[in-house]
């Protein structure tokens, strides 16, 4: 399944948005959290600054998000992880409301109640969770609903290499395979689960091989490359949409930042990130686009300008949005 020019350009621009978004966030997140802005004695204060809570960034992991989501429609469901921004952006979640949510503002997707790990966008059918392995069961449920509603909607569960050892992985794949539901299970293998390398947590090399335990197709994408993910993801989404049941995909990808911002990354071999960044998938896709005559300097500059603008506007929207009133804390436990 070859991407069209339009799809290639969409993937390219979306990857740019994600990267820009995460790189800005990497800095914004630190605002107010470092001396001298914080309490004496602390090196870093997670509880200060404009962005609350933990922050898990996905720079480097753009291909898995755009390569799969390029095949999705608005009615398809995506469930992401604790590291959700790239999935949300690729699924079309509006950047302003998402950023406002991450800033804990009243204009956010969840009125500031959910936050970075809990982005809910019912319209664009995106959700995520801070619990490792929790994305899989609700994706199975979304697929079940699609079948009950007589729709050809597809559900995608993204999860990490660490999550592939949670019980929910097994239960969800079995259930989806048994009921032949339109789910695509996508494992992001960025090698790390916080400080634990995949080889220290997973008995076999490729989670894609676990598909045989459920009698479904399993494919591993060995390269952190949007076009390769696009091809494999396209097969799986089409298969699901046709009613032929679930698939499992594992994509090798790279985490450029720490597990969360503030992570000293003492567990990480020196130079690993620099090495990984040498195979940055964004310039790679740019080269591909250029080779195919789909991108020139001017086009690229226009994209970059758009990306800059949309990201800047999102952060500005968030910063200028009000905080929710204290009284709202008690609301929305129930509808």
């Amino acid at each position, binding site marked *: 399944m070859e991407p069209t020019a339009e799809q290639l350009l969409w993937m390219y621009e979306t990857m740019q948005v994600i990267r820009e978004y995460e790189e800005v966030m990497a800095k914004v997140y630190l605002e107010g959290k470092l001396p001298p802005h914080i309490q004496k004695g602390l090196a870093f204060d997670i509880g200060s600054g404009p962005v609350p809570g933990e922050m898990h960034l996905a720079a480097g992991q753009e291909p898995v998000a755009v390569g799969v989501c390029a095949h999705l429609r608005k009615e398809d*469901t995506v469930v992401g992880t604790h590291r959700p921004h790239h999935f949300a952006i690729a699924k079309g979640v509006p950047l302003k409301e998402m950023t406002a949510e991450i800033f804990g503002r009243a204009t956010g997707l969840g009125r500031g109640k959910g936050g970075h790990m809990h982005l809910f966008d019912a319209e664009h059918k995106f959700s995520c969770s801070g619990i490792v392995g929790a994305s899989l069961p609700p994706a199975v449920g979304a697929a079940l609903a699609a079948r009950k509603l007589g729709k050809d909607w597809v559900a995608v569960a993204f999860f990490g290499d660490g999550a592939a050892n949670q019980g929910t992985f097994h239960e969800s794949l079995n259930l989806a395979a048994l009921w032949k539901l339109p789910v695509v299970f996508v494992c992001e293998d960025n090698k790390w689960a916080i400080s634990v390398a995949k080889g220290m947590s997973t008995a076999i090399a490729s989670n894609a091989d676990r598909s045989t335990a459920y009698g479904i197709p399993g494919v591993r994408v060995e390269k952190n490359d949007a076009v390769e993910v696009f091809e494999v993801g396209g097969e799986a989404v089409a298969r699901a949409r046709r009613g032929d049941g679930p698939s499992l995909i594992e994509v090798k990808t790279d985490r450029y930042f720490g597990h969360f911002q503030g992570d000293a990354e003492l567990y990480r071999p020196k130079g690993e990130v620099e090495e990984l960044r040498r195979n940055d998938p964004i310039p790679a896709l740019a080269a591909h686009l250029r080779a195919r005559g789909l991108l020139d300097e001017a086009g690229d500059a226009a994209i970059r300008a758009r990306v800059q603008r949309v990201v800047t506007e999102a952060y500005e929207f968030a910063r200028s949005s009000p905080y929710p009133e204290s009284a709202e804390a008690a609301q929305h436990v129930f509808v």
Partner: protein
Amino acid sequence: MALATGTRTLTMAQAISEAIGQEMERDPSVFVMGEDIGKYGGIFSATGGLLDRFGPERIMDTPISESAFIGAATGAAAEGMRPIAELMFVDFFGVCMDQIYNHLAKNTYMSGGRVRLPVVLMTAIGGGYNDAAQHSQCLYATFAHMPGLKIVVPSNAYDAKGLMVSAIRDDNPVFYFFHKGIMGLPWMAYFEGSTTPVPEQPYAVPFGEARVAREGGDVTVVAVSQMVQKAVLAAEEAAKEGISAEVIDLRTLVPLDAESVARSVDKTGRLLVADEDYLNFGLTGEIAALVGERLGSIKLKAPIKRLGVPGTPIPYSRPLEQATIPQVGHLVEAMRGLMTTSVA
């Protein structure tokens, strides 16, 4: 309490499956998932007869994968379906608790009220037939403690039907607990009081409204589920000794009708909280505290009394189980104690 027209006497199991069946007819988005809920009709018959009526696409037997199918209920509800999921025994919640309390219970809040999750979880609770530590618990207080779920604990068939109708129609997740020992099953002793006239027409019993199961003036007994039946029997015993007990059936723990409790204790001045869940850090403490917080207006005549499973797992052996779970006799004794002690 029962409507005058078209009532028959049903067991609680029949009342529950009737409510589900009627709501499934009314609303095509309602369906049921669980283990052995199809041909078997549910181990405690809560889905009896439904497979034949609605077929396997709406009455879905699942693998023994509670996290997957309860999580799937959340996912399906977010898409507009109204799933009912049965957790066979509440004692199994530990294999799927994350999907229940971190997701089903919290997603509405975390989305600022923008995600609706009309899911009914239903489950069997309670002991009395010696099924030991992993199959005899109540545990509703745990789910009432954590926010985000409405908690329904019926004590009889009439309420069971009306509360199930309300649960299914509610746009929020509802956890519905039925006690095995009041379901009226042909293979387990049950309390007669739980089998009641039940109107054929669907009707809703609202959440958050306690029921005065028996009126009285000396002692207030607060209970739920099977313990309401025990409390009524105990009150009849106590009446022979001249003690007049009022029995309050909370019916739902979330929302909790604190005012009905306060009103009754204000009248009687004496409170017994009797529970089959664990005694410590649970329902009995909460009810006692509600009164403790209202001592500005309520005048107690006696210190508060609590009964529950006292800090031990449920033992298997029959005499041990009988000693551990509060019985009618224990309640009578506690009422007597309330009449003979007084506050400082």
